[in-house]
């Protein structure tokens, strides 16, 4: 039985904003299936009582003081932009509204 279906890969591609062709979907479905099967080995480690680590080092409470620092100039900020209008980033039309 495969760990991941082609439809699931298509869903992942949509979630990841990757416009993949049908051939690519087939190709990735096969590869991801093999990889997922292999990484599923993590389940073999008995770790019910083990806390997860998101970091290697147990640092806490790293903050900065509420102080203003120099921002970029608008020219610097916009220097890499694919399109600019009125000192703003020009982007293609936005579908729907989110949060």
């Amino acid at each position, binding site marked *: 039985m495969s760990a991941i279906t082609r439809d699931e890969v298509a*869903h992942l591609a*949509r*979630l990841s*904003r990757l416009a993949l062709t049908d051939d690519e979907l087939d190709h990735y479905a096969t590869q991801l299936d093999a990889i997922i099967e292999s990484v599923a080995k993590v389940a073999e480690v008995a770790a019910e009582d083990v806390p997860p680590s*998101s*970091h290697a080092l147990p*640092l*806490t*409470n*790293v*903050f*900065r*003081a*509420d*102080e*203003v*620092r*120099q*921002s*970029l*100039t*608008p020219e610097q*900020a*916009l220097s*890499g932009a694919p399109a600019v*209008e*009125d*000192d*703003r*980033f*020009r*982007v*293609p*039309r*936005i579908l*729907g*509204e*989110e*949060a």
Partner: protein
Amino acid sequence: MTMVYDEALDRFEPVLGLETHVELGTKSKMFCGCKTAFGAPANTQVCPTCLALPGSLPVANAMAIESTIRIGLALNCSIAEWCRFARKNYFYPDMPKNYQISQYDEPLCFDGYVDVEVGGETVRIEIERVHLEEDTGKSTHMGGATGRIHGADYSIVDYNRAGIPLVEIVTKPIPGTDRLAPEVAKAYVTELREIMRSLGVSDVRMEEGSLRCDVNVSLMPRGASEWGTRTETKNVNSLRSVERAVRSEIERQAGILAEGGKIFQETRHFHEDTGTTTSGRSKEEAQDYRYFPEPDLVPIEPDPVWVAELKAALPELPSVRRKRLQAEWGVSDLDMQAMHNADAFDLVEATVAAGAPAADARKWWMGELARRANESGVALAELPITPAQIARVTELVASGALNDKLAREVLEGVLAGEGTPDEVVEARGLKIVNDEGELSAIIDQVLAANADAAEKVRSGKIAAAGALVGGVMKASRGKADAARARELILEKLGVSE
């Protein structure tokens, strides 16, 4: 389709939920040192971090953490002993990283409550969580007919707002509000706004978006025990809209349910112009935000001693303060409500602190000044006059140097930018005529000009003296002391009361 409100409430019970976003008034952004000023030129308050340039990293603003904990404490919350930021992943052009740094299952503050007064009753709103996150940039939609997102040709984005600290306050579901649901929602947001102000953590201006509200509403048939499907209405940007959005959503849902229809869990948008909501998102796929602990930041572990200190140092909270002021000023519930609605507590309290009697302070702010603020369409606090100046005017009235009519003229002068009350009195020559000789001369003129009236008084019709006093006030252009003028008139005509 929609059902009128009263009928809807006859058949259904509403359950509310409110998610409120408060932009903190920190000097710098949540995760970088950019300024947070409102209305700055586009993309002048951005840096590698808040533009999500490759390689940039966030560092959390200590003041934002402190403010959030203070908000939690003011809302009677428990403060987490240990918690983390998490990434909320979704793509959207106004969110530079395409994930928002937020908090997921480990909020900074949780399990609190706030009491609000509605219709003379106290309603306890339970708070589920208070967490810290970052704001997004702002898109302007170009082309198309409406300037709205739908039908636009393209958009332009300003990231000045991206990364401003945002505190999200989420209530637990609020059942049992019944017909008062819209008022309860409004009272809750009003109370939050005042709490934020008293804490000094935000300017909470709904019109500038520093206080934003999402309203969740569901209905269940009367007598049912299971709550209905809720909708989340966004874009509710004024206190009045909070009330209207709840009402409108109750009417809409009731209409659908009454016809045997189904409510879909969805995001809806409130429209100020029509007072109604429309469906915001028609995605068949449920959002999957793929939250995970933010690896670029380390956990927060607030020192309990510090939290206790913050708690001890909280300012007097608005509900406590209102009770105290009402007792001190000895005013009715109705007057308190009027002052509350007019946002006049600070002004009246400051005026009293500057030496005015409470009754006078309230009279001026809620009377003459409220009228003028209303005329100019500004808030009371925005009038160009200070509590100390009002206190001075009441002092001049009390000392007899001004009467109410003159005092109103003085206020007019101050509001017109002519200077302090004393300067206006001097410049406009508004002092009551206290010189007996001058007053006597004016009275003589008036008696001579109104011989008939004078005769009536002399013959015992003392009521006719009113017209003579009026004449004196007119001749003195309001500057005479009316009571003294009456005494002198009667004296000159040889009668007594």
